[in-house]
């Protein structure tokens, strides 16, 4: 390989047919004279612009249709040299770092010698060792192209904002399950907003046996095994539900606050009493009507109860998860739109409350297709305010444009699966830790179940991994009409 050109942080390297390099590979451009090396990543492979190739190709089709048949007597065997030149490739590489004295730095302000530099491929384990991408809490993401494992450190997900995105059916949920299971293994507390009811059986193996996570998975289905005792509900949480999920106007919210406090002071906070108090409220008719309609929504959700015995599961789960690690899977599969928002508002409110009171140390929140249940103003809240309380969110979506720009800019890690749509790639390119060329070039060609990992977990060395399989019962398959139809021969 020969160094050909450098433009900004893009380097072009000439590669010959016997030197294979593919998109995603890392190369080291070493200049022994200055004892420095550039670490570059191949982001595109092109044909080298060798003069005369067009003529070479054209003359094989001189009559415009079938190749002319003939014999080449090539006594000096020059033909292999012609092929060698003709098949030369140009590796478009992105400079990732400078290696000097065994230490990596993000600088690319120097230029290695074009004639003297030695260029060689660098294996992923070698790079990971240099970049110190390992640690005490390893999570094996999967295998790399050179048959080594890509291992990230769980602590690099701690306190971060992550995005898992890619086309439908390329393995996003699978990766989020892998991350989730690994975190649980390290006794972390995980909360999942499970839109499609596919995380509840993580405690089971594919063949239906219990696995090591079985006792750490708490599947909570709103209105069934997951209810809230209204007496234990904090005013802030209920106001959050009324205002954010049920769009209660401010004036009405103030009136509700008085009613709530009155009942609380009297120790008579039940659903029945709350309904009665609203009906008898000495206030504007419109306010009363507004409060009454929200109250009925709360009651009709079936999520609230006066029975303390029915409402202990979340608290218990949190307690256990805090001790041994565990995942609270909030199953939103059969929950209506409004009820879904009520549940999410409650859970988030409860989490903040628990974190503020140090009932929980920190929570890893996995939110699948969050735009379906999170109000817009919540996005910033989650990534800024709630992060300080200890809620570390991972968004999972196949519609990257549903996540706000501000989220991308603050994302610490991006796990990117295949996208072919230019618009989707554009959106993902906005992430601060990502360069557009890498995303556009590599993500477009990712095969299914292969993920481009970007950001802190890989110390800003984008790496492609085939996400490893898990022996977990998968529930995320799409129900198919023709799946059971016998094939007609």
């Amino acid at each position: 390989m020969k160094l050909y050109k450098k433009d900004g942080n893009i380097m072009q390297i000439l590669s010959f047919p016997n030197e294979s390099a593919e998109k995603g590979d890392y190369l080291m451009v070493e200049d022994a004279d200055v004892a420095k090396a550039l670490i570059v990543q191949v982001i595109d492979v092109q044909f080298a612009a060798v003069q005369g190739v067009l003529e070479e190709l054209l003359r094989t089709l001189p009559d415009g249709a079938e190749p002319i048949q003939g014999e080449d007597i090539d006594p000096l065997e020059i033909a292999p040299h012609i092929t060698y030149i003709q098949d030369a490739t140009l590796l478009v590489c992105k400079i990732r770092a400078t290696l000097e004295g065994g230490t990596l730095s993000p600088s690319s302000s120097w230029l290695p010698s074009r004639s003297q530099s030695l260029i060689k491929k660098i294996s992923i384990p070698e790079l990971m060792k240099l970049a110190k991408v390992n640690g005490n809490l390893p999570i094996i993401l999967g295998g790399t192209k050179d048959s080594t494992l890509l291992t990230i450190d769980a602590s690099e997900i701690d306190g971060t904002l992550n995005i898992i995105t890619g086309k439908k059916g390329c393995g996003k949920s699978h990766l989020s399950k892998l991350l989730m299971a690994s975190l649980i293994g390290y006794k972390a507390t995980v909360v999942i907003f499970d839109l499609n009811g596919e995380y509840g059986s993580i405690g089971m193996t594919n063949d239906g046996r219990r696995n090591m996570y079985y006792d750490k998975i708490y599947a909570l289905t709103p209105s069934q095994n997951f209810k809230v005792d209204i007496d234990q509900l904090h005013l802030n949480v209920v106001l959050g539900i009324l205002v954010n999920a049920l769009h209660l106007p401010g004036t009405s919210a103030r009136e509700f606050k008085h009613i709530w406090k009155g009942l609380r002071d009297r120790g008579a906070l039940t659903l029945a009493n709350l309904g009665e108090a609203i009906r008898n409220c000495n206030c504007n008719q419109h306010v009363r009507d507004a409060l009454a309609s929200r109250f009925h929504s709360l009651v009709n959700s079936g999520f609230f109860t006066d029975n303390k015995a029915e409402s202990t599961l979340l608290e218990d789960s949190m307690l256990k998860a805090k001790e041994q690690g565990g995942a609270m899977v909030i199953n939103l599969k059969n929950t209506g739109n409004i009820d879904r928002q009520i549940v999410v508002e409650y859970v988030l409110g409860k989490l903040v409350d628990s974190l503020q009171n140090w009932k929980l140390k920190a929570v890893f929140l996995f939110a699948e297709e969050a735009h379906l249940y999170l109000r817009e103003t919540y996005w910033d809240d989650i990534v800024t305010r709630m992060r300080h309380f200890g809620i570390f969110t991972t968004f999972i979506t196949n519609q990257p444009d549903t996540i706000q720009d501000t989220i991308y800019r603050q994302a610490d890690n991006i796990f990117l699966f295949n996208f072919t749509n230019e618009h989707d790639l554009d959106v993902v390119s906005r992430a601060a830790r990502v360069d557009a060329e890498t995303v556009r070039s590599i993500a477009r060609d990712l095969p299914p179940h292969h993920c481009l990992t970007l950001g802190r977990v890989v110390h800003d060395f984008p790496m492609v991994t085939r996400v490893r399989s898990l022996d977990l019962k998968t529930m995320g398959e799409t129900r198919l009409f023709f799946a059971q139809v016998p094939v007609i021969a």
Partner: protein
Amino acid sequence: MVIEQYTITTTPKYNFPQPTPETPLPQRFIELSINSLRQVRNTTFQPNPQNIHQDAYAEETPTQLQLKRQPLPLSPRRQETTLAAVDTSTIKIGETTTGIVIAIRGATVWKQNRNYKYQRFGPLIFHITEENKNAVYGNLQRDYFKAQNSGSHQSAPTLMQMPTRLASLLERLLQTTLAKKMTDGLILFDGSLTCGTIDTPVHRLREILSTARRNQNTVIAFSKATSLRSNGFLITDLLPEKETPYLLETTGLSFKPPTVLLGDVYVARLNKANMAFRLDIDHEMPFQSHLEAVEKLLGNDAFQHGYPETLRLAHILCTFTANEVLAMQHFVTRRHGIQIINRPDMHRLLFGPFGKEGYA
């Protein structure tokens, strides 16, 4: 990009479809090529040289040349006839401290049963020095043409003439082989049937034509450009607006010795394209067979801009591309340990931006 290079006249190939295995052609060329390259082992090499500028064969314009204005109409004869064409190319691929490194390649294309086929010979790379040029050229002349005066100072080309001389030799050799092995066909040469020059002695071309005739072949030479003029005008510019295809006869054409013309010269406009070519047909053949040969050519070959496809393919196949030149430079450096050096461009060095080639 096609490198500027010389295409010498056409050459034959063996009898179709099978080449003769016993032909002495490859072996001697190969031996000389390899031997010459051995001499440059572990020396330095300057690639990307300037193209060799050889004076094109200067046609002496005969004073009495007249072009008959009455066209000879032609009608294509579909009778199945084998067509064959030969062309060679040469290029200088670099310089060493003692000489030049050149490459030559020849191609024979034939059309039989409506299919074009080809045989390419080469590239052959030669390292030519002042010391070995006579031996290389002389040996080839002697081995293939039994030349008596090979190696003599009269016939010894200069170093810069060697690429075209060697290519010309290869081309005549391919033509000879083709004339011997083919029967009842049309053999297309690139160029004219003018001879008497150092690289095309009269006896050599005469022998080729005579061999072709013995095998009932007709030789037709196409010149892409001519300097022949009639009444001050290029003969290929004087095209009557008549229905194509047609030939225009010339008369009164003779050259001063030692130049000899072995063909009858025509101007051929072979399709509606407003392009005509000088056509030389073996003058030992009867006039009627000249017309028949061109009509068979019309009935058996495709034409682009009035130029036969078989000959066009021969040219295309032997021409060196820039990619191939790179490959040959790669070959000589890898196989023969020749170290590439880059001498400064003196024009650039002395004249800066005014030192571009072509702004002499």
